[in-house]
């Protein structure tokens, strides 16, 4: 096959490209320029969008002996991921930009362009399994598993995707990179949100959304217990940084229960008030088989790196509803709910949707 390997400059995508070459594919490497004003050097372990990363990717492509190009996706990324990220926070939700990037950029804008240019598939260094059965499964490396942020992909997108790393642990990938002479073998993992170089998400949002002072209200008493400078700075389940003026009457810690953009109010309450058992979600995809007619017993994951809980999931064309078998705390609108079917060969992604209410 003629395949396009998306190469971030990190060790995973470099080894994924190497494995695609070894599998006999005709591989072309592409680095996606996502930042409008890229920094020259990486600072710490953040981000993946500096010129240094681009050069690392090019060097890896050289070592593999494959053509290499840089594709400018900065405008698309800005519109579909960064603006969306800001708008979601402004709407009181908690977005996952990696998921959105997969949905809109890597497996949409990039994949579509690749297909138009005559490529058959896109290869990435995501840690997830996608075998001949077409099912997306968790990586063997549970700590590095990225199936959660890939679960948004449709059948058509998965059919044109190759994830060569799903059967390997991160340690194995690094060892293989060293064996193959790839200089990125020891490169630190990237963390956090790639377009917020200093890791200061609040500051990033404040710059874009400005100050919007409002009240912090206690859910039990209805009393105003504090103020905030922007409701977008809060996430459901958050405990730290609330800066309440007065302690709650019951003396127990308070958590963010909900954010109401219309009134610019942050509602706080005790931990048990965070517990939800019923989750509703929109924009469902279902790739683990034919869409079921009735409830399906499965496990659901409600945030990246979150625990799974048993649930009964019902899905139709417009939405998804999950009845959790035990309550979960801190379920935030905007995050994805991903349904998995436990399987000894790797838990299978059944489907996913964007949480609207819990």
């Amino acid at each position, binding site marked *: 096959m003629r395949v396009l390997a998306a190469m971030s400059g990190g060790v995973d995508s470099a080894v994924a490209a190497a494995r695609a070459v070894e599998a006999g594919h005709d591989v*072309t490497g592409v680095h996606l*320029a996502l930042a409008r004003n890229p920094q020259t050097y990486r600072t710490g372990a953040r981000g993946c969008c500096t010129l240094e990363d681009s050069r690392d990717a090019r060097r890896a492509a050289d070592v593999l002996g494959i*053509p290499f190009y840089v594709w400018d996706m900065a*405008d*698309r990324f800005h519109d579909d991921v960064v603006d969306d990220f800001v708008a979601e926070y402004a709407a009181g939700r908690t977005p996952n930009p990696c998921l959105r990037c997969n949905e809109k950029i890597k497996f949409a804008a990039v994949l*579509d362009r690749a297909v*138009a*240019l005559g490529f058959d598939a896109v290869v990435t260094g995501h840690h997830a399994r996608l075998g001949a059965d077409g099912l997306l499964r968790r990586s063997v490396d549970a700590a590095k598993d990225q199936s959660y942020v890939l679960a948004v992909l449709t059948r058509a997108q998965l059919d044109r995707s190759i994830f060569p790393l799903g059967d390997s642990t991160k340690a194995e990938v690094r060892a293989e990179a060293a064996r193959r002479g790839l200089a990125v073998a020891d490169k630190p993992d990237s963390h956090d949100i790639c377009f917020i170089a200093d890791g200061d998400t609040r500051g990033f949002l404040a710059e874009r959304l400005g100050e919007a002072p409002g009240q912090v209200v206690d859910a039990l008493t209805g009393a105003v217990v504090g103020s905030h400078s922007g409701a977008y700075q809060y996430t459901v389940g958050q405990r730290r940084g609330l800066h309440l003026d007065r302690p709650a009457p019951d003396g127990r810690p308070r958590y963010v229960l909900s954010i109401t953009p219309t009134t610019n109010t942050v509602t706080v309450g005790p931990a048990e008030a965070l517990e939800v058992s019923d989750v509703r979600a929109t924009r469902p995809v279902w790739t683990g088989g034919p869409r079921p007619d009735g409830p399906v017993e499965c496990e659901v994951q409600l945030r990246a790196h979150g625990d799974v809980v048993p649930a009964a999931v019902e899905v139709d064309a417009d939405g998804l509803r999950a009845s959790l078998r035990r309550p979960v705390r801190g379920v935030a609108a905007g995050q994805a709910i991903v349904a998995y079917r436990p399987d000894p060969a790797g838990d299978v992604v059944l489907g996913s949707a964007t949480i609207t209410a819990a």
Partner: protein
Amino acid sequence: MAYLDHAATTPMLDEALEAYVATAREVGNASSLHAAGRRARRRVEESRERVAAALGARPSEVIFTGGGTESDNLAVKGVFWARRAARADRVRVVSSSVEHHAVLDAVDWLVEHEGAQAGLLPVDAVGRLDPERLRAELAEHGERVAVVTAMWANNEVGTVQPVAELAAVAAEHGVPFHTDAIQAVGQVPVDFAASGVSALTVTGHKLGGPTGVGALLLARDVAATPLLHGGGQERDVRSGTLDTAGIVAFAVAVEAAVKGQQEYAARVAALRDELVERVRQAVPEVIFNGDPADRLPGNAHFSFPGCEGDALLLLLDAQGIACSTGSACSAGVAQPSHVLLAMGADDDRARSSLRFTLGHTSTGADVDALIAALPAAVERARRAAALRTPR
């Protein structure tokens, strides 16, 4: 492989390569006083004379440098500094909107760091400068202009400028005129003295010599403040141990390129015309850019409506065809060509462009390979471009 990117760099001539290897085997620093040093010095000075003779300059006007970018920077910054030192309000630098970045960015640097004022001469739709615009510029700012710089021939669209006319206008006002002749030497007749320019940039690797060696021809009465300080090896204007082997090979290449220019230009222009004609047949909507008559013999430059040059390059590269989008890269991301924008092209047309440049090793088979691959590449690139969401 069909190599259609000779304007980026062209293969070394056999005689230049042989001269390089033979000289590189010899020990000797041209600044040393002993026999080995004298031998190296002799090679350098013989080369200086050959370059001077080939380009219509005096040997004392040849300053060897590390290549085109250094020569351009030395001419623009060096002459600016020297002229401003003579008169403090002489801070205007006049260039054109289609210069290479080695000139444009040097001017920008002077503006940002040295208080210079930039005057930018426009071009017409084929990328050609109008000497009358320079006349008007100098009539307005004459005394305050430190240096005028305009390229002999454009590296992207191949348009050859009326350099002698421009130089004459500058001379009327007593302002030094520099020309970047990197793309011109060996392609069109270039004579330093006859052209009337005060400074001329030439580099080795565009004409069959090695990369990393070139020269600035600088008239004896034009002062330039050095960029590099040290031993003062080249007329106290340029320091650094002379690259004897590189200089020898450069001189061999310059001499050969100039000597063979007429025959070369006739052969390559005929091949280029065939390429243009066949591209037009294969892709009738294509737009041919640059001056149709006054252009470099090896240059063919097109816009492919509805395509992105980047996508075409990738697709042609996969078929073993090397060409260029001709545009500068910023962070590895192609920017729309400032040359095409200056010629009045819109962003889409600028981004849809590809440059094919022929050279001394080009054959009809290269053109055949391009024509065989081009229609399918254009078709695919169109499909890819159609995916772009309208903005």
